Protein backbone atom coordinates (compact mmCIF):
# COMPACT_ATOMS: atom_id res chain seq x y z
CA UNK A 1 0.00 0.00 0.00
CA UNK A 2 1.17 3.50 -0.81
CA UNK A 3 2.73 5.01 2.35
CA UNK A 4 0.82 8.24 1.76
CA UNK A 5 -2.42 6.31 2.21
CA UNK A 6 -1.44 5.33 5.71
CA UNK A 7 -1.78 8.86 7.01
CA UNK A 8 -5.14 10.01 8.24
CA UNK A 9 -6.85 12.45 5.94
CA UNK A 10 -6.33 15.98 7.29
CA UNK A 11 -9.42 17.85 8.39
CA UNK A 12 -10.98 20.31 5.97
CA UNK A 13 -11.52 23.95 6.90
CA UNK A 14 -15.28 23.41 7.23
CA UNK A 15 -14.72 20.46 9.55
CA UNK A 16 -12.34 22.48 11.69
CA UNK A 17 -14.84 25.34 11.92
CA UNK A 18 -17.64 22.96 12.93
CA UNK A 19 -15.38 21.28 15.49
CA UNK A 20 -14.37 24.67 16.94
CA UNK A 21 -18.01 25.73 17.33
CA UNK A 22 -18.98 22.44 18.99
CA UNK A 23 -15.95 22.64 21.28
CA UNK A 24 -16.70 26.21 22.31
CA UNK A 25 -20.31 25.28 23.03
CA UNK A 26 -19.25 22.20 24.97
CA UNK A 27 -16.85 24.26 27.09
CA UNK A 28 -18.95 27.35 27.72
CA UNK A 29 -22.61 26.30 27.68
CA UNK A 30 -22.34 24.27 30.93
CA UNK A 31 -21.40 27.40 32.87
CA UNK A 32 -24.98 28.59 32.37
CA UNK A 33 -26.66 25.32 33.41
CA UNK A 34 -27.87 24.06 36.77
CA UNK A 35 -26.87 20.80 38.43
CA UNK A 36 -29.49 18.52 36.92
CA UNK A 37 -29.03 19.88 33.40
CA UNK A 38 -25.28 19.37 33.78
CA UNK A 39 -25.90 15.82 34.86
CA UNK A 40 -28.04 15.22 31.78
CA UNK A 41 -25.35 16.69 29.55
CA UNK A 42 -22.73 14.47 31.20
CA UNK A 43 -24.95 11.49 30.41
CA UNK A 44 -25.20 12.66 26.79
CA UNK A 45 -21.41 12.62 26.51
CA UNK A 46 -21.22 9.12 27.98
CA UNK A 47 -23.94 7.89 25.60
CA UNK A 48 -22.10 9.53 22.70
CA UNK A 49 -18.95 7.52 23.46
CA UNK A 50 -20.93 4.27 23.63
CA UNK A 51 -22.74 5.09 20.38
CA UNK A 52 -19.48 5.96 18.67
CA UNK A 53 -18.11 2.56 19.63
CA UNK A 54 -21.22 0.74 18.45
CA UNK A 55 -21.18 2.74 15.23
CA UNK A 56 -17.59 1.66 14.56
CA UNK A 57 -18.79 -1.91 14.77
CA UNK A 58 -22.25 -1.80 13.21
CA UNK A 59 -22.23 1.33 11.09
CA UNK A 60 -18.74 1.08 9.61
CA UNK A 61 -18.07 -2.64 9.81
CA UNK A 62 -21.66 -3.90 9.37
CA UNK A 63 -21.53 -6.27 12.34
CA UNK A 64 -24.74 -6.20 14.33
CA UNK A 65 -24.48 -6.16 18.10
CA UNK A 66 -27.77 -6.25 19.97
CA UNK A 67 -26.10 -6.59 23.34
CA UNK A 68 -23.72 -3.69 23.56
CA UNK A 69 -25.27 -2.61 26.84
CA UNK A 70 -23.51 -5.65 28.29
CA UNK A 71 -20.12 -4.08 27.58
CA UNK A 72 -21.28 -0.80 29.15
CA UNK A 73 -22.29 -2.88 32.18
CA UNK A 74 -18.91 -4.60 32.28
CA UNK A 75 -17.15 -1.22 32.14
CA UNK A 76 -19.41 0.27 34.80
CA UNK A 77 -18.97 -2.68 37.16
CA UNK A 78 -15.22 -2.85 36.54
CA UNK A 79 -14.88 0.83 37.43
CA UNK A 80 -17.14 0.50 40.48
CA UNK A 81 -15.29 -2.56 41.79
CA UNK A 82 -11.87 -1.02 41.18
CA UNK A 83 -12.92 2.13 43.02
CA UNK A 84 -14.65 0.53 46.01
CA UNK A 85 -12.53 -2.62 46.43
CA UNK A 86 -9.11 -1.53 45.29
CA UNK A 87 -9.30 2.14 46.14
CA UNK A 88 -8.43 3.23 42.61
CA UNK A 89 -9.21 6.89 41.98
CA UNK A 90 -12.04 7.45 39.49
CA UNK A 91 -9.77 8.94 36.82
CA UNK A 92 -7.71 5.73 36.79
CA UNK A 93 -10.74 3.46 37.13
CA UNK A 94 -12.31 4.76 33.92
CA UNK A 95 -9.46 3.83 31.55
CA UNK A 96 -8.92 0.58 33.46
CA UNK A 97 -12.60 -0.23 32.93
CA UNK A 98 -12.05 0.37 29.22
CA UNK A 99 -9.27 -2.22 29.21
CA UNK A 100 -11.41 -4.75 31.08
CA UNK A 101 -14.20 -4.20 28.60
CA UNK A 102 -11.79 -4.54 25.68
CA UNK A 103 -10.65 -7.90 27.01
CA UNK A 104 -14.25 -9.00 27.54
CA UNK A 105 -15.07 -7.91 24.01
CA UNK A 106 -12.15 -9.82 22.51
CA UNK A 107 -13.02 -12.90 24.55
CA UNK A 108 -16.66 -12.83 23.45
CA UNK A 109 -15.79 -11.75 19.93
CA UNK A 110 -13.43 -14.65 19.23
CA UNK A 111 -16.16 -17.29 19.09
CA UNK A 112 -18.97 -14.99 18.00
CA UNK A 113 -17.12 -13.62 14.99
CA UNK A 114 -16.57 -16.96 13.37
CA UNK A 115 -20.06 -16.59 12.02
CA UNK A 116 -21.16 -13.37 10.50
CA UNK A 117 -24.26 -11.27 10.42
CA UNK A 118 -27.31 -12.84 11.94
CA UNK A 119 -25.48 -15.23 14.20
CA UNK A 120 -23.51 -12.45 15.80
CA UNK A 121 -26.78 -10.58 16.31
CA UNK A 122 -28.22 -13.69 17.98
CA UNK A 123 -25.23 -14.26 20.23
CA UNK A 124 -25.03 -10.62 21.33
CA UNK A 125 -28.80 -10.54 21.89
CA UNK A 126 -28.30 -13.50 24.21
CA UNK A 127 -25.47 -11.72 25.99
CA UNK A 128 -27.60 -8.62 26.50
CA UNK A 129 -30.47 -10.69 27.90
CA UNK A 130 -28.37 -12.90 30.15
CA UNK A 131 -25.92 -10.43 31.68
CA UNK A 132 -28.27 -8.64 34.15
CA UNK A 133 -29.21 -12.02 35.61
CA UNK A 134 -25.55 -12.96 35.90
CA UNK A 135 -24.81 -9.68 37.70
CA UNK A 136 -27.48 -10.54 40.28
CA UNK A 137 -26.06 -14.03 40.80
CA UNK A 138 -25.45 -14.89 44.46
CA UNK A 139 -22.03 -16.37 43.75
CA UNK A 140 -20.81 -13.02 42.46
CA UNK A 141 -22.62 -10.93 45.05
CA UNK A 142 -19.46 -10.26 47.03
CA UNK A 143 -18.13 -8.40 44.00
CA UNK A 144 -21.20 -7.03 42.26
CA UNK A 145 -23.40 -6.23 45.24
CA UNK A 146 -26.13 -8.44 43.78
CA UNK A 147 -29.50 -6.85 43.19
CA UNK A 148 -28.49 -3.84 45.31
CA UNK A 149 -25.62 -2.88 43.03
CA UNK A 150 -22.72 -0.68 44.18
CA UNK A 151 -22.93 2.89 45.44
CA UNK A 152 -20.03 5.18 44.57
CA UNK A 153 -19.00 8.52 46.03
CA UNK A 154 -19.14 11.71 44.04
CA UNK A 155 -15.71 13.02 43.06
CA UNK A 156 -14.57 16.53 44.05
CA UNK A 157 -12.81 18.88 41.66
CA UNK A 158 -9.03 18.38 42.05
CA UNK A 159 -6.28 20.96 42.76
CA UNK A 160 -8.76 23.16 44.63
CA UNK A 161 -10.39 24.24 41.37
CA UNK A 162 -13.40 26.44 42.08
CA UNK A 163 -15.83 24.10 40.29
CA UNK A 164 -18.79 22.42 41.89
CA UNK A 165 -19.00 18.62 41.64
CA UNK A 166 -21.50 18.49 38.77
CA UNK A 167 -19.51 20.92 36.67
CA UNK A 168 -16.30 19.06 37.40
CA UNK A 169 -17.90 15.71 36.45
CA UNK A 170 -19.05 17.25 33.20
CA UNK A 171 -15.59 18.56 32.31
CA UNK A 172 -14.01 15.28 33.36
CA UNK A 173 -16.37 13.38 31.05
CA UNK A 174 -15.74 15.89 28.27
CA UNK A 175 -11.99 15.44 28.67
CA UNK A 176 -12.50 11.73 27.97
CA UNK A 177 -15.01 12.29 25.16
CA UNK A 178 -12.85 14.56 23.02
CA UNK A 179 -9.85 12.26 22.61
CA UNK A 180 -12.12 9.29 22.01
CA UNK A 181 -13.87 11.09 19.17
CA UNK A 182 -10.52 12.21 17.79
CA UNK A 183 -9.13 8.68 17.86
CA UNK A 184 -12.29 7.25 16.28
CA UNK A 185 -12.19 9.83 13.51
CA UNK A 186 -8.57 9.03 12.69
CA UNK A 187 -9.21 5.30 12.83
CA UNK A 188 -12.08 5.63 10.40
CA UNK A 189 -10.43 8.03 7.99
CA UNK A 190 -7.28 5.93 7.76
CA UNK A 191 -6.27 2.54 6.49
CA UNK A 192 -8.15 0.67 9.21
CA UNK A 193 -11.39 2.51 8.51
CA UNK A 194 -11.17 1.75 4.81
CA UNK A 195 -10.59 -1.90 5.61
CA UNK A 196 -13.62 -1.97 7.93
CA UNK A 197 -15.88 -0.35 5.35
CA UNK A 198 -14.57 -2.60 2.59
CA UNK A 199 -15.32 -5.66 4.71
CA UNK A 200 -18.85 -4.35 5.20
CA UNK A 201 -19.61 -3.50 1.58
CA UNK A 202 -17.66 -6.09 -0.36
CA UNK A 203 -16.24 -8.73 1.95
CA UNK A 204 -15.05 -11.04 -0.82
CA UNK A 205 -13.27 -8.28 -2.71
CA UNK A 206 -11.73 -6.98 0.52
CA UNK A 207 -10.32 -10.38 1.43
CA UNK A 208 -9.06 -10.83 -2.12
CA UNK A 209 -7.23 -7.50 -1.74
CA UNK A 210 -5.46 -8.88 1.30
CA UNK A 211 -7.57 -7.45 4.12
CA UNK A 212 -7.42 -9.87 7.04
CA UNK A 213 -11.15 -10.23 7.69
CA UNK A 214 -10.97 -12.04 11.04
CA UNK A 215 -8.38 -9.65 12.45
CA UNK A 216 -10.17 -6.48 11.47
CA UNK A 217 -13.55 -7.72 12.57
CA UNK A 218 -12.15 -8.75 15.93
CA UNK A 219 -10.38 -5.39 16.17
CA UNK A 220 -13.65 -3.56 15.51
CA UNK A 221 -15.45 -5.68 18.10
CA UNK A 222 -12.74 -5.09 20.70
CA UNK A 223 -12.52 -1.34 20.12
CA UNK A 224 -16.27 -0.93 20.24
CA UNK A 225 -16.38 -2.89 23.50
CA UNK A 226 -13.66 -0.60 24.86
CA UNK A 227 -15.69 2.48 23.93
CA UNK A 228 -18.79 0.97 25.49
CA UNK A 229 -16.83 0.13 28.64
CA UNK A 230 -15.40 3.63 29.03
CA UNK A 231 -18.89 5.06 28.47
CA UNK A 232 -20.35 2.72 31.09
CA UNK A 233 -17.63 3.66 33.58
CA UNK A 234 -18.11 7.40 32.98
CA UNK A 235 -21.86 7.07 33.37
CA UNK A 236 -21.39 5.07 36.57
CA UNK A 237 -19.13 7.77 38.04
CA UNK A 238 -21.68 10.42 37.04
CA UNK A 239 -24.66 8.51 38.50
CA UNK A 240 -22.59 7.26 41.48
CA UNK A 241 -24.40 3.96 41.27
CA UNK A 242 -24.36 0.73 39.29
CA UNK A 243 -27.14 -1.86 39.39
CA UNK A 244 -28.03 -4.84 37.19
CA UNK A 245 -31.40 -3.47 36.16
CA UNK A 246 -29.86 -0.44 34.48
CA UNK A 247 -28.45 -2.77 31.85
CA UNK A 248 -31.40 -4.81 30.60
CA UNK A 249 -31.73 -5.75 26.95
CA UNK A 250 -33.71 -2.53 26.52
CA UNK A 251 -30.61 -0.50 27.33
CA UNK A 252 -28.81 -2.30 24.51
CA UNK A 253 -31.77 -1.61 22.25
CA UNK A 254 -31.63 2.08 23.21
CA UNK A 255 -28.02 2.12 21.97
CA UNK A 256 -29.16 0.61 18.67
CA UNK A 257 -31.87 3.27 18.47
CA UNK A 258 -29.19 5.89 19.08
CA UNK A 259 -26.93 4.85 16.21
CA UNK A 260 -29.80 4.28 13.78
CA UNK A 261 -31.37 7.66 14.46
CA UNK A 262 -28.08 9.53 14.80
CA UNK A 263 -26.78 8.04 11.59
CA UNK A 264 -25.11 4.73 10.81
CA UNK A 265 -21.58 5.17 9.58
CA UNK A 266 -21.19 8.73 10.77
CA UNK A 267 -19.13 10.18 13.61
CA UNK A 268 -21.31 13.18 14.38
CA UNK A 269 -24.29 10.81 14.37
CA UNK A 270 -23.13 9.52 17.77
CA UNK A 271 -23.82 12.96 19.23
CA UNK A 272 -27.28 13.32 17.65
CA UNK A 273 -28.18 9.82 18.76
CA UNK A 274 -27.00 10.54 22.30
CA UNK A 275 -29.11 13.70 22.48
CA UNK A 276 -32.09 11.71 21.20
CA UNK A 277 -31.88 8.85 23.68
CA UNK A 278 -31.16 11.22 26.57
CA UNK A 279 -33.91 13.78 26.02
CA UNK A 280 -36.73 12.21 23.97
CA UNK A 281 -37.68 9.63 26.64
CA UNK A 282 -37.81 12.38 29.27
CA UNK A 283 -40.25 14.35 27.17
CA UNK A 284 -42.30 11.32 26.13
CA UNK A 285 -42.45 9.98 29.67
CA UNK A 286 -45.04 12.63 30.49
CA UNK A 287 -47.49 10.98 28.07
CA UNK A 288 -47.24 7.46 29.44
CA UNK A 289 -44.57 5.17 30.81
CA UNK A 290 -44.81 3.12 27.62
CA UNK A 291 -44.56 6.13 25.33
CA UNK A 292 -40.74 6.44 25.17
CA UNK A 293 -40.43 2.92 23.88
CA UNK A 294 -43.31 3.28 21.47
CA UNK A 295 -41.54 6.34 20.08
CA UNK A 296 -38.23 4.46 19.90
CA UNK A 297 -39.93 1.70 17.94
CA UNK A 298 -41.66 4.05 15.54
CA UNK A 299 -38.46 6.01 14.96
CA UNK A 300 -36.52 2.79 14.37
CA UNK A 301 -38.98 1.72 11.67
CA UNK A 302 -39.17 5.22 10.20
CA UNK A 303 -35.38 5.41 9.95
CA UNK A 304 -35.14 1.94 8.44
CA UNK A 305 -37.48 2.90 5.58
CA UNK A 306 -37.20 6.65 5.17
CA UNK A 307 -33.92 7.83 6.66
CA UNK A 308 -31.37 5.02 6.38
CA UNK A 309 -28.53 7.36 7.31
CA UNK A 310 -30.30 8.96 10.22
CA UNK A 311 -30.06 12.58 11.30
CA UNK A 312 -26.44 12.91 10.21
CA UNK A 313 -27.29 11.74 6.71
CA UNK A 314 -30.26 14.10 6.48
CA UNK A 315 -28.13 17.05 7.58
CA UNK A 316 -25.45 16.11 5.07
CA UNK A 317 -28.01 16.06 2.26
CA UNK A 318 -29.40 19.42 3.38
CA UNK A 319 -25.90 20.92 3.38
CA UNK A 320 -25.24 19.60 -0.11
CA UNK A 321 -28.54 21.02 -1.37
CA UNK A 322 -27.74 24.42 0.15
CA UNK A 323 -24.26 24.40 -1.34
CA UNK A 324 -25.71 23.75 -4.79
CA UNK A 325 -28.19 26.58 -4.46
CA UNK A 326 -25.56 29.04 -3.26
Amino acid at each position, binding site marked *: MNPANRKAVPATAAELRAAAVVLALALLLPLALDGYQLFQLTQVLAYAIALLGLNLLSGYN*GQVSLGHGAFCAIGAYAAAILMTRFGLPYWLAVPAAGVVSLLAGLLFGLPALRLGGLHLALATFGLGLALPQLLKYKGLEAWTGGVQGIVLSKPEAPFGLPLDQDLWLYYFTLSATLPMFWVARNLIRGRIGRALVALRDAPIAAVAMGVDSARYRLFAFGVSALYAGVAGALAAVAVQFVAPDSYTIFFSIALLVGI*VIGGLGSISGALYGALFIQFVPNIADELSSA*APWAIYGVFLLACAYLLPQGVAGALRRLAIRNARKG
Partner: protein
Amino acid sequence: MEALVNQLLSGLASGGIYASLALALVMIYQATHHVNFAQGEMAMFSTYVAWTLIAAGFGYWAAFFLTLAFAFGLGFLIERLLVRPVARAPVLSVVVVFIGLLVIFNSLAGWLFSYSIRSFPSPFPQETLHLGRYLVTPHQLGAVGVTLIVLVLVFAFFRYTATGLAMRAAAQHPDSSRLAGIRVGRMLALGWGLAAAIGATAGMMAAPVVYLEPNMMSGILLYAFAGALLGGIDNPGGAVLGGFLVGVLENLLGAYVIGTEIKLSVALFLIVAVLLVRPRGLFGGRSLRS
Protein backbone atom coordinates in the same frame (compact mmCIF):
# COMPACT_ATOMS: atom_id res chain seq x y z
CA MET B 1 -34.86 -40.80 41.00
CA GLU B 2 -38.32 -39.49 41.68
CA ALA B 3 -37.07 -35.93 41.73
CA LEU B 4 -35.07 -36.52 38.58
CA VAL B 5 -38.10 -37.80 36.69
CA ASN B 6 -40.15 -34.88 37.95
CA GLN B 7 -37.49 -32.50 36.69
CA LEU B 8 -37.44 -34.29 33.34
CA LEU B 9 -41.22 -34.02 33.05
CA SER B 10 -41.35 -30.33 33.84
CA GLY B 11 -38.38 -29.83 31.51
CA LEU B 12 -40.37 -31.45 28.72
CA ALA B 13 -43.33 -29.23 29.56
CA SER B 14 -41.39 -25.98 29.23
CA GLY B 15 -39.50 -27.55 26.33
CA GLY B 16 -42.79 -27.83 24.49
CA ILE B 17 -43.23 -24.07 24.72
CA TYR B 18 -39.66 -23.43 23.52
CA ALA B 19 -40.21 -25.93 20.74
CA SER B 20 -43.31 -24.11 19.45
CA LEU B 21 -41.53 -20.78 19.39
CA ALA B 22 -38.42 -22.35 17.85
CA LEU B 23 -40.63 -23.86 15.16
CA ALA B 24 -42.07 -20.40 14.43
CA LEU B 25 -38.55 -18.94 14.17
CA VAL B 26 -37.37 -21.71 11.88
CA MET B 27 -40.36 -21.38 9.56
CA ILE B 28 -39.48 -17.76 8.95
CA TYR B 29 -35.76 -18.49 8.72
CA GLN B 30 -36.31 -21.20 6.14
CA ALA B 31 -38.42 -19.01 3.91
CA THR B 32 -36.54 -15.73 4.13
CA HIS B 33 -33.26 -16.28 6.01
CA HIS B 34 -34.39 -13.77 8.59
CA VAL B 35 -34.36 -14.30 12.33
CA ASN B 36 -37.48 -12.69 13.72
CA PHE B 37 -36.38 -11.05 16.96
CA ALA B 38 -39.97 -9.86 17.45
CA GLN B 39 -41.39 -13.41 17.47
CA GLY B 40 -41.63 -13.48 21.25
CA GLU B 41 -43.29 -10.08 21.52
CA MET B 42 -45.77 -10.95 18.78
CA ALA B 43 -46.69 -14.07 20.75
CA MET B 44 -46.98 -12.02 23.94
CA PHE B 45 -49.26 -9.49 22.23
CA SER B 46 -51.46 -12.26 20.85
CA THR B 47 -51.71 -13.70 24.34
CA TYR B 48 -53.01 -10.35 25.56
CA VAL B 49 -55.63 -10.53 22.82
CA ALA B 50 -56.68 -13.93 24.14
CA TRP B 51 -56.81 -12.53 27.65
CA THR B 52 -59.02 -9.65 26.48
CA LEU B 53 -61.36 -12.05 24.70
CA ILE B 54 -61.63 -14.27 27.75
CA ALA B 55 -62.28 -11.25 29.94
CA ALA B 56 -65.01 -10.22 27.47
CA GLY B 57 -66.82 -13.48 28.14
CA PHE B 58 -65.58 -15.83 25.42
CA GLY B 59 -64.93 -19.42 26.38
CA TYR B 60 -61.27 -20.47 26.54
CA TRP B 61 -61.18 -22.45 23.31
CA ALA B 62 -63.21 -19.88 21.38
CA ALA B 63 -60.74 -17.24 22.51
CA PHE B 64 -57.85 -19.58 21.68
CA PHE B 65 -58.89 -20.07 18.07
CA LEU B 66 -59.89 -16.44 17.57
CA THR B 67 -56.42 -15.48 18.85
CA LEU B 68 -54.80 -17.86 16.38
CA ALA B 69 -56.75 -16.15 13.60
CA PHE B 70 -55.68 -12.74 14.91
CA ALA B 71 -52.03 -13.81 15.11
CA PHE B 72 -52.20 -15.23 11.61
CA GLY B 73 -53.55 -11.95 10.26
CA LEU B 74 -50.96 -9.98 12.22
CA GLY B 75 -48.07 -12.05 10.86
CA PHE B 76 -49.46 -11.90 7.33
CA LEU B 77 -49.79 -8.11 7.45
CA ILE B 78 -46.36 -7.58 9.02
CA GLU B 79 -44.73 -9.55 6.22
CA ARG B 80 -46.66 -7.67 3.54
CA LEU B 81 -46.25 -4.17 4.96
CA LEU B 82 -43.00 -4.12 6.89
CA VAL B 83 -40.73 -7.02 6.05
CA ARG B 84 -41.05 -7.16 2.29
CA PRO B 85 -39.65 -3.65 1.68
CA VAL B 86 -36.39 -4.65 3.41
CA ALA B 87 -36.29 -8.23 2.09
CA ARG B 88 -33.09 -7.65 0.15
CA ALA B 89 -31.55 -5.08 2.47
CA PRO B 90 -28.39 -5.74 4.51
CA VAL B 91 -28.67 -7.74 7.74
CA LEU B 92 -28.46 -4.60 9.85
CA SER B 93 -31.57 -3.00 8.28
CA VAL B 94 -33.60 -6.17 8.70
CA VAL B 95 -32.52 -6.55 12.31
CA VAL B 96 -33.40 -2.91 12.94
CA VAL B 97 -36.92 -3.50 11.61
CA PHE B 98 -37.39 -6.57 13.81
CA ILE B 99 -36.06 -4.80 16.88
CA GLY B 100 -38.39 -1.90 16.06
CA LEU B 101 -41.31 -4.35 16.00
CA LEU B 102 -40.15 -5.92 19.27
CA VAL B 103 -40.10 -2.53 20.96
CA ILE B 104 -43.44 -1.46 19.47
CA PHE B 105 -45.31 -4.60 20.55
CA ASN B 106 -43.73 -4.45 23.98
CA SER B 107 -44.67 -0.83 24.58
CA LEU B 108 -48.08 -1.21 22.94
CA ALA B 109 -48.89 -4.05 25.33
CA GLY B 110 -47.68 -1.94 28.25
CA TRP B 111 -49.73 1.00 27.05
CA LEU B 112 -52.95 -0.90 26.37
CA PHE B 113 -52.83 -3.48 29.13
CA SER B 114 -50.43 -1.91 31.70
CA TYR B 115 -47.19 -3.46 32.94
CA SER B 116 -48.80 -5.13 35.94
CA ILE B 117 -48.54 -8.90 36.12
CA ARG B 118 -51.77 -10.79 35.40
CA SER B 119 -52.76 -14.39 35.75
CA PHE B 120 -53.82 -16.22 32.62
CA PRO B 121 -56.16 -19.20 32.71
CA SER B 122 -55.15 -22.68 31.69
CA PRO B 123 -57.77 -24.73 29.82
CA PHE B 124 -56.69 -27.80 31.76
CA PRO B 125 -57.78 -28.85 35.27
CA GLN B 126 -56.00 -27.43 38.29
CA GLU B 127 -55.24 -30.35 40.58
CA THR B 128 -51.91 -32.16 40.37
CA LEU B 129 -51.92 -35.61 38.81
CA HIS B 130 -50.12 -38.60 40.23
CA LEU B 131 -48.68 -40.78 37.51
CA GLY B 132 -47.52 -43.63 39.67
CA ARG B 133 -45.16 -41.83 42.00
CA TYR B 134 -44.53 -38.87 39.71
CA LEU B 135 -46.27 -35.54 39.92
CA VAL B 136 -47.33 -33.56 36.90
CA THR B 137 -49.78 -30.74 36.49
CA PRO B 138 -52.45 -31.20 33.84
CA HIS B 139 -51.26 -27.93 32.32
CA GLN B 140 -47.80 -29.39 31.75
CA LEU B 141 -49.29 -32.43 30.03
CA GLY B 142 -51.71 -30.23 28.11
CA ALA B 143 -48.97 -27.88 26.93
CA VAL B 144 -46.94 -30.79 25.63
CA GLY B 145 -50.08 -32.20 24.02
CA VAL B 146 -50.87 -28.91 22.30
CA THR B 147 -47.28 -28.66 21.04
CA LEU B 148 -47.46 -32.17 19.62
CA ILE B 149 -50.82 -31.48 17.96
CA VAL B 150 -49.44 -28.30 16.40
CA LEU B 151 -46.43 -30.26 15.18
CA VAL B 152 -48.52 -32.96 13.58
CA LEU B 153 -50.78 -30.38 11.94
CA VAL B 154 -47.81 -28.41 10.59
CA PHE B 155 -46.19 -31.59 9.34
CA ALA B 156 -49.38 -32.75 7.65
CA PHE B 157 -49.95 -29.32 6.17
CA PHE B 158 -46.51 -29.20 4.56
CA ARG B 159 -46.60 -32.83 3.49
CA TYR B 160 -50.11 -33.38 2.18
CA THR B 161 -51.69 -30.10 1.09
CA ALA B 162 -51.11 -28.27 -2.17
CA THR B 163 -50.62 -24.96 -0.35
CA GLY B 164 -48.08 -26.53 2.00
CA LEU B 165 -46.10 -27.97 -0.88
CA ALA B 166 -46.25 -24.65 -2.70
CA MET B 167 -44.90 -22.89 0.40
CA ARG B 168 -42.00 -25.31 0.63
CA ALA B 169 -41.26 -24.87 -3.03
CA ALA B 170 -41.40 -21.07 -2.68
CA ALA B 171 -38.94 -21.20 0.22
CA GLN B 172 -36.47 -23.48 -1.50
CA HIS B 173 -36.53 -22.32 -5.11
CA PRO B 174 -38.37 -19.02 -5.36
CA ASP B 175 -37.53 -18.44 -9.01
CA SER B 176 -38.48 -21.89 -10.29
CA SER B 177 -41.64 -21.77 -8.17
CA ARG B 178 -42.63 -18.48 -9.73
CA LEU B 179 -42.18 -20.03 -13.19
CA ALA B 180 -44.37 -22.94 -12.08
CA GLY B 181 -47.16 -20.49 -11.23
CA ILE B 182 -46.75 -20.28 -7.45
CA ARG B 183 -47.34 -16.85 -5.98
CA VAL B 184 -44.12 -16.69 -4.00
CA GLY B 185 -44.92 -13.41 -2.24
CA ARG B 186 -48.22 -14.72 -0.97
CA MET B 187 -46.55 -17.92 0.23
CA LEU B 188 -44.04 -15.90 2.28
CA ALA B 189 -46.85 -13.90 3.88
CA LEU B 190 -48.73 -17.14 4.59
CA GLY B 191 -45.60 -18.53 6.22
CA TRP B 192 -45.33 -15.46 8.41
CA GLY B 193 -48.99 -15.81 9.39
CA LEU B 194 -48.56 -19.46 10.28
CA ALA B 195 -45.41 -18.74 12.26
CA ALA B 196 -47.19 -16.01 14.20
CA ALA B 197 -50.07 -18.37 14.97
CA ILE B 198 -47.68 -21.07 16.19
CA GLY B 199 -45.93 -18.45 18.32
CA ALA B 200 -49.30 -17.45 19.75
CA THR B 201 -49.95 -21.00 20.95
CA ALA B 202 -46.56 -20.87 22.68
CA GLY B 203 -47.58 -17.60 24.33
CA MET B 204 -50.93 -18.96 25.51
CA MET B 205 -49.35 -22.14 26.84
CA ALA B 206 -46.57 -20.18 28.60
CA ALA B 207 -48.76 -17.48 30.17
CA PRO B 208 -50.37 -19.67 32.91
CA VAL B 209 -46.84 -20.60 34.06
CA VAL B 210 -44.83 -17.37 33.70
CA TYR B 211 -47.86 -15.03 34.09
CA LEU B 212 -48.97 -12.46 31.61
CA GLU B 213 -46.86 -9.29 31.36
CA PRO B 214 -45.20 -7.46 28.48
CA ASN B 215 -41.76 -8.98 29.13
CA MET B 216 -42.98 -12.53 29.64
CA MET B 217 -41.47 -13.90 26.43
CA SER B 218 -37.93 -12.47 26.57
CA GLY B 219 -36.42 -15.44 28.38
CA ILE B 220 -38.54 -17.91 26.42
CA LEU B 221 -37.38 -16.33 23.15
CA LEU B 222 -33.75 -16.84 24.18
CA TYR B 223 -34.42 -20.52 24.90
CA ALA B 224 -36.25 -20.83 21.61
CA PHE B 225 -33.20 -19.38 19.84
CA ALA B 226 -31.01 -21.87 21.66
CA GLY B 227 -33.37 -24.70 20.72
CA ALA B 228 -33.56 -23.65 17.09
CA LEU B 229 -29.78 -23.37 16.81
CA LEU B 230 -29.19 -26.64 18.64
CA GLY B 231 -31.59 -28.55 16.41
CA GLY B 232 -30.54 -26.77 13.24
CA ILE B 233 -32.02 -23.44 12.30
CA ASP B 234 -33.04 -24.68 8.87
CA ASN B 235 -34.70 -27.88 10.05
CA PRO B 236 -38.19 -27.57 11.64
CA GLY B 237 -38.20 -31.06 13.13
CA GLY B 238 -34.71 -30.55 14.50
CA ALA B 239 -35.68 -27.20 16.00
CA VAL B 240 -38.63 -28.78 17.81
CA LEU B 241 -36.40 -31.50 19.20
CA GLY B 242 -33.87 -28.82 20.10
CA GLY B 243 -36.57 -26.91 21.97
CA PHE B 244 -37.48 -29.98 24.03
CA LEU B 245 -33.78 -30.71 24.67
CA VAL B 246 -33.17 -27.16 25.86
CA GLY B 247 -36.18 -27.37 28.18
CA VAL B 248 -34.88 -30.57 29.76
CA LEU B 249 -31.30 -29.27 29.97
CA GLU B 250 -32.46 -26.03 31.52
CA ASN B 251 -34.42 -27.87 34.21
CA LEU B 252 -31.76 -30.44 35.00
CA LEU B 253 -28.93 -27.89 35.13
CA GLY B 254 -31.14 -25.55 37.14
CA ALA B 255 -32.03 -28.26 39.64
CA TYR B 256 -28.71 -29.99 40.06
CA VAL B 257 -25.80 -27.92 38.83
CA ILE B 258 -26.07 -24.16 38.77
CA GLY B 259 -29.33 -23.25 40.46
CA THR B 260 -32.19 -21.34 38.95
CA GLU B 261 -30.66 -17.88 39.23
CA ILE B 262 -28.57 -17.81 36.07
CA LYS B 263 -30.70 -19.95 33.79
CA LEU B 264 -30.51 -17.37 31.02
CA SER B 265 -26.73 -17.74 30.95
CA VAL B 266 -27.27 -21.42 30.19
CA ALA B 267 -29.14 -20.42 27.05
CA LEU B 268 -26.41 -17.95 26.11
CA PHE B 269 -23.74 -20.57 26.72
CA LEU B 270 -25.67 -23.06 24.58
CA ILE B 271 -26.03 -20.55 21.75
CA VAL B 272 -22.32 -19.70 21.73
CA ALA B 273 -21.33 -23.34 22.13
CA VAL B 274 -23.48 -24.46 19.20
CA LEU B 275 -22.16 -21.64 17.02
CA LEU B 276 -18.62 -22.64 17.94
CA VAL B 277 -18.74 -26.39 17.75
CA ARG B 278 -21.46 -27.21 15.26
CA PRO B 279 -22.90 -24.10 13.65
CA ARG B 280 -25.46 -25.96 11.60
CA GLY B 281 -26.89 -27.62 14.71
CA LEU B 282 -27.53 -31.28 15.32
CA PHE B 283 -29.84 -31.82 12.36
CA GLY B 284 -29.21 -28.79 10.17
CA GLY B 285 -28.31 -28.87 6.49
CA ARG B 286 -24.77 -28.47 5.26
CA SER B 287 -24.80 -24.94 4.04
CA LEU B 288 -25.16 -22.11 6.49
CA ARG B 289 -25.71 -18.67 5.15
CA SER B 290 -24.36 -16.00 7.40
